[in-house]
């Protein structure tokens, strides 16, 4: 099990080896000229005003919260799905009840996420 993860990291390392020269070459070959207008943040022609890092929008926050919970649920479903025959009918019934029970808070969250006057 250890050797194939090592190979994945090797492949990522090869990607690093391929990407780094493509960033070094423009530094050597491209013309350099410092200009204040080039380095200002882009705002479609306006002169930028205010800070670039405005506050985070909270409009779609409930969708992010749902992701955390449903990601863990997906991992449990994978554990069941691979060993389908070993867990038998009882396992299937238990997992189905698990999914159906999780749909209730999902409906609640989607209802509240859709109420745009709240956020």
């Amino acid at each position, binding site marked *: 099990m250890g050797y194939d993860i090592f190979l994945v990291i090797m492949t990522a390392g090869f990607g690093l080896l391929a990407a780094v020269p493509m960033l070094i070459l423009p530094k050597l070959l491209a013309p350099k000229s410092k200009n204040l207008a080039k380095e200002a943040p882009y705002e479609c022609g306006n002169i930028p005003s205010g800070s670039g890092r405005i506050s985070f929008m909270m409009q779609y926050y409930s969708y992010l919260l749902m992701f955390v919970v449903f990601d863990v649920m997906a991992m449990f479903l994978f554990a069941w799905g691979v060993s389908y025959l070993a867990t038998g009918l009882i396992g299937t019934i238990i997992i189905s009840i698990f999914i159906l029970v999780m749909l209730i808070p*999902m409906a609640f969250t989607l209802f509240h996420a859709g109420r745009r006057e709240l956020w």
Partner: protein
Amino acid sequence: MTQIRSFSDFLIRVIKIVAVLAIIGGIFVVATSFLQIMFGMSELPLPISPSDLITNPSALISLLTGLMDTDFFRISVFPGFTFVALYGAIAGLWERKLLAKMQMRVGPLYAGKVEGVLQPIADVLKLLFKELITPKGADRFLFGLVPVLTVVISTAAIAVIPVSEHWVIAQSDFGVLVIFAVLGFFPITVLITAWSSNSKFPFIGGLRALHQMVAYEIPLILSTLVAVMYSGSLNLINIVNAQSTYWFILFAPVSAIVFFICGLAEMERSPYDLPEAESELASGWLAEYSGMNFGLILGIAVYIKVYIFSALFTIFFLGGWLGPNFLPPEFWFILKTAIVTTMILLPRGVLPRSKIDVLLRQGWARFLLLAIVNIFIAIVLIQAGVIVPGAV
């Protein structure tokens, strides 16, 4: 150098120095491991004397086949980086010609004598000569890190994708989980991009990209659960071998559709390309990237992702490399992957963009329910005895 005004500034400086040292150390470790892998080719029939070459030239063939079996060849050439980069370049040219024909115009025509085949090379050469501009006030380290990180993560995911039973870089018993673990890094990359360019448009675009990618990742994972249930294994080679009687798309059509659409959303292609919407958000979270930074993210990493999703679609639903015996299995895999790639490239010329609240709501409400519906269909089919997991 920025001034240190408080303890948190000091901590951030220390963390940056440690990170730079870790990256340099990592490059050193990777380089030496490469040398070890290359010199681990000691079971090759070397050396061959010149007289042996003249009298018995077939000794060279065994040397070449021995060379092709090493890990370094697999990482760099065949199912690895060079193959995927070539596939990406051809997919880029094919996309532009396809869109042009759909819009009743010619596409690239002038680079190269025949129908603009040298256009990708011309693009890369142009981008190499452009200046890399870092906006003022941007976080320099993170800003320069992101293009490299995107390419590295895209390349890491191709390590477990098998082109045929023999040609795979890393044959892992947890292949499906490795792929989703690597693909889960992309939302973080987008967020780092959005924060580090000190500008409002990339910030809003990056947040929208984060919400979109995170929303469509759960239906993607759950739609592959059906293929895992039918084959009883997380190993991608076993999943393909379990389709030797019938392809899984016949037993899980809903999951195939959900996988395809969620793949479109993860790759940020039409109709889900709101994060890089050129007319609305001034090219979204990539707005501050110029020259080769832009070329790495939008050119190379996007087409590597297109290859990854096309290959995964053929492995999970279309039977991978299985096909009639008169042609080699690698050919069937590449043919099927090319057909799926064409289907991925087509909606860009046809469909309008989805709005952000519409697409988030659809992703959570509709696609998650469709994926769960197909899990129940799979339960019924397995209980009825139509498919037996792990029979192969």
